[in-house]
């Protein structure tokens, strides 16, 4: 299993993993050279890491191409313990190299953590990977197990002290979850097809069909919503972190936080992720009126909802949005939607073999970069 899966997730001879690590290291060197240091609470970072890792790991575990791979693999004889260990190791390595490496690069460059914090962070990462396996395996059948595991991870991240006892607590926690992970029935990692979903009665309306389609698409996968929530949480963390570190008014960073939330991949790959949909849209007439306009409108509304949740969350954290931030939110939502629709139409991502390639295509950073520059210009110039 390990050879085939690692080739898929980490690339031929770990090429994709090496590339990601080199990029993260370059980012670290670049940011570190700025010699700009921030006072970031270890607990906040432990929580962010746990939340982020669980989110992306569940998204990776539930991908359709992974399900296809497991289906083929489970048709052959296998050893339960070995499969779980290898599966967790590969997925963990994938999350570390492809997804978390950039987060760590930014943290290490700005925070300069001590040895104890680094050790706690490593153990927290391993624990988050193992916990994700448990959360995913029991999400549909024994939800309480998933819920307890998640709550335990969040609680420890917030309550643990940054000292030797913190390391011991994380070590005990990690060892405690290894055993259950090894003994989970591997078939639980297969994404089960649900029974045929019947949608209300006969549709009589011709209105809002694409909007309905897109909403069904976004709500079809819990990880899509998790992804949005994680981005909002990250945006809040970012604003608070810069408020603490720079003693600047937090609201000044709000537009930049909005820009970060716009890295919303699921809606930005609707066409790229389905080759046949792309072809059908090309073949059918009146694409602009029948698809592009409703697609743009739906994304605009979706971003507005995300931004509203973000602004509301910040309000509860004591950051009140000013008029500039609210106008920025509206403008950014429209702008993001138009760019997403343009990119999906004119430059869809076609050269991808596994879903993870699609999710990590650098194209998704175009919108946040454009908006971040704007956000920066709005607040500081």
């Amino acid at each position, binding site marked *: 299993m390990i050879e085939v899966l690692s080739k898929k997730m980490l690339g031929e001879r770990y090429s994709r993993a090496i590339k990601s690590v080199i990029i993260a290291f370059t980012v670290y060197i670049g940011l570190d050279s700025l010699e700009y240091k921030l006072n970031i609470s270890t607990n906040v970072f432990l929580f962010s890491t746990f939340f982020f890792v669980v989110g992306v790991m569940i998204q990776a575990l539930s991908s359709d191409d992974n399900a296809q791979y497991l289906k083929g693999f489970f048709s052959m004889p296998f050893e339960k313990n070995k499969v779980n260990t290898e599966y967790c190791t590969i997925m963990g390595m994938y999350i570390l190299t492809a997804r978390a490496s950039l987060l760590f690069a930014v943290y290490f460059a700005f925070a300069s953590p001590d040895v104890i914090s680094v050790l706690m962070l490593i153990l927290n990462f391993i624990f988050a990977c193992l916990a994700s396996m448990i959360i995913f395996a029991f999400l549909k059948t024994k939800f309480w197990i998933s819920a307890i595991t998640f709550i335990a991870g969040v609680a420890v991240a917030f309550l643990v002290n940054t000292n030797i006892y913190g390391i011991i607590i994380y070590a005990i926690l990690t060892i405690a979850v290894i055993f259950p992970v090894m003994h989970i029935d591997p078939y639980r990692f297969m994404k089960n097809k649900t029974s*045929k979903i019947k949608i209300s009665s006969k549709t009589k309306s011709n209105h809002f*069909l694409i909007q*309905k389609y897109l909403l069904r698409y976004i709500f079809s996968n819990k990880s899509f919503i998790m992804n949005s929530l994680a981005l909002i949480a990250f945006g809040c963390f970012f604003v608070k972190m810069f408020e603490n570190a720079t003693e600047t008014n937090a609201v000044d960073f709000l537009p930049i936080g909005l820009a970060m939330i716009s890295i919303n991949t699921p809606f930005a790959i609707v066409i790229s992720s389905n080759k*046949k949909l792309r072809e*059908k849209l090309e*073949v059918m*007439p009146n694409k602009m009126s029948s698809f592009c306009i409703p697609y743009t409108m739906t994304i605009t509304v979706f971003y507005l909802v995300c931004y509203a949740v973000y602004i509301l969350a910040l309000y509860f954290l004591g950051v009140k949005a000013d008029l500039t931030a609210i106008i920025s939110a509206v403008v950014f939502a429209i702008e993001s939607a138009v760019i997403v629709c343009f990119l999906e139409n004119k430059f869809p991502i076609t050269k991808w073999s596994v879903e993870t390639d699609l999710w990590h295509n650098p194209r998704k950073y175009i919108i946040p970069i454009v908006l971040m520059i704007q956000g920066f210009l709005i607040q500081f110039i």
Partner: protein
Amino acid sequence: MTALTKIEKLCAWYNEGNNVLDSLDLTLEKNTVVGLLGLNGAGKTTLINVLCGLHNDYRLGNSDTPKNYFRDNKFKENRYVVFSEDDSFGFFTFDEYIRYVFKTYKKKLNTELVEELIELFNFSSYRSVMIKELSLGNRKKVYLITGFALRTDLLLLDEPVNGLDFQSTEALYKLIKEYKEYGTVLFSSHILESVTLTADKVVILENGKITKTFEKDQINAENIRNSLDFERDDNK
């Protein structure tokens, strides 16, 4: 008969210098059923993709058909295609999909006809199920019913029989045969019976060229089988 589309000296390729379709001439008359036969790799799907505007690398010999003709909105409004494999619009139900397609083609939905087609394909219990949840055969029915209900001037079917049950295959043959009342059907198939029972014209594709055409009385299984046997012998 009047020509609906005339293709002259069509060359199409995936790698430059290696033509999959090589100087192919094909005239699609109005209100006819044309069956496209050929061995695997003969270029049937590539030809359909060119007609759909999905294949980029091609060249036409005749000057009266502009390069972007197949991508022109007017042409699109008069053409519908059923792909051999399709998982597009998976989050729609059949009812939503057909409404969306009719809206896109700016046509009024003929509910009576749709009900008839649903009955014919024995599809009524699946119409409110999301397309992505349907089996291969039922998914095919979604796109076929839509195509036959839409009644565009040109209906392209790429291996329409694949995945269909016996009863639906019979229904499909009937519908293809009757379609010439409303437009032209061009369909590719591996099943000899499907063309002998429905087509007015059968074209045999071999190495990217039309090597034989059968019309009316010439269309029978033996003639076509002999022709395909020759083709196989030539390939040896």
